[in-house]
């Protein structure tokens, strides 16, 4: 009976599937770190605020207020929408900015939200925002990653393999989440 060269096939699988998952692993890692710190920053949008002043607006009707605001701000483009959250504020919505005007004082806040290039796309894919077909691609990626990690255990034999140093390092990899979880549920 011919000897099955399982390690050779193990290493081929590890190498080739490894190549396939590099792009998504890098994208998901970067996005993972970015989204992990969502309390400290906005990983999807860069929000810029600009403060300017215009003369106070005392008009009565909404249409007049909007017209005066647009004239004062020299906004030629028609806003998508206008809204008054309270009697002293007018908001004008444009494709690329939101303009909030404090009518009695004429203080204006112009807010722009720009998607962070590439990171925005990475986050959307990482958080499976497209859903549909991407759900299955992400499942396949997870399976591929599983194959890469399991085959990785058996790439080497000897003292640096899974029967030697590899066993200790793999054990540490198991212990860290288990110990943390026990700590987490205990306190």
């Amino acid at each position, binding site marked *: 009976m011919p000897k099955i060269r399982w390690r050779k096939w193990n290493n081929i699988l590890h190498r080739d599937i490894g190549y396939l998952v590099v792009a998504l692993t890098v994208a998901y890692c970067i996005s993972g770190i970015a989204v992990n710190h969502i309390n400290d920053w906005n990983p999807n949008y860069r*929000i810029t605020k600009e403060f300017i002043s215009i003369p106070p607006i005392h008009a009565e009707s909404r249409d007049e207020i909007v017209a005066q605001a647009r004239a004062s701000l020299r906004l030629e483009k028609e806003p*998508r*929408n206008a*809204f008054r959250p309270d*009697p002293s504020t007018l908001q004008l*919505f*444009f494709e690329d900015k939101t303009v909030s005007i404090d009518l009695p004082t004429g203080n204006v806040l112009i807010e722009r939200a720009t998607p962070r290039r*590439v990171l925005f796309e990475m986050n959307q894919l990482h958080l499976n*925002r497209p859903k549909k077909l991407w759900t299955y691609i992400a499942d396949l990626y997870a399976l591929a990653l599983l194959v890469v990690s399991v085959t990785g255990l058996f790439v080497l034999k000897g003292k640096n393999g899974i029967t030697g140093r590899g066993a200790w390092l793999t054990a540490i990899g198991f212990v860290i989440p288990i110990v943390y979880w026990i700590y987490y549920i205990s306190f």
Partner: protein
Amino acid sequence: MKKMSAVMLISMLLMSLAVAQEVPKEYGKPLTVKKPTKISEILANPQTHDGKRVLVEGPVVDVCPKRGCWIQIGSDKEFEMIQFKVEDGVIVFPMEAKGLKVRAEGIVSVTTLTREQLIEQARHQAEEQGKLDEFKPESIEGPKTVIRLNGEGAIITK
């Protein structure tokens, strides 16, 4: 190296196209309620709508900037709006939705929050909007009845 750069560039381009915003765009479950209810009507009589499934229409006047987990929908009457809250990650509204029109379906929720709960909620919102420096807990009064829609599906149009 040139080949590698070309592959990466094409990948990024495809990625951008894959998540590009198209309008009209559907979010979450398909809408089932045909007749819209006026937001002003819900806000004027919250108890009669509490727990009921409704469809509302209006402009998107604010979006959760970090998680996209809520939008504020402008009412048919001035100075009024209602929050349309969705489960984190299930529906994610983009900031580009600001100013667009939305048809949104959800369950009306009427709850009374204590002053402490209102302060905590306001602090969280200020944190999300990067306005923590403007947050003044002493200006918050309570208890207060909070009316919102627990959102299930929405369509955003121009």
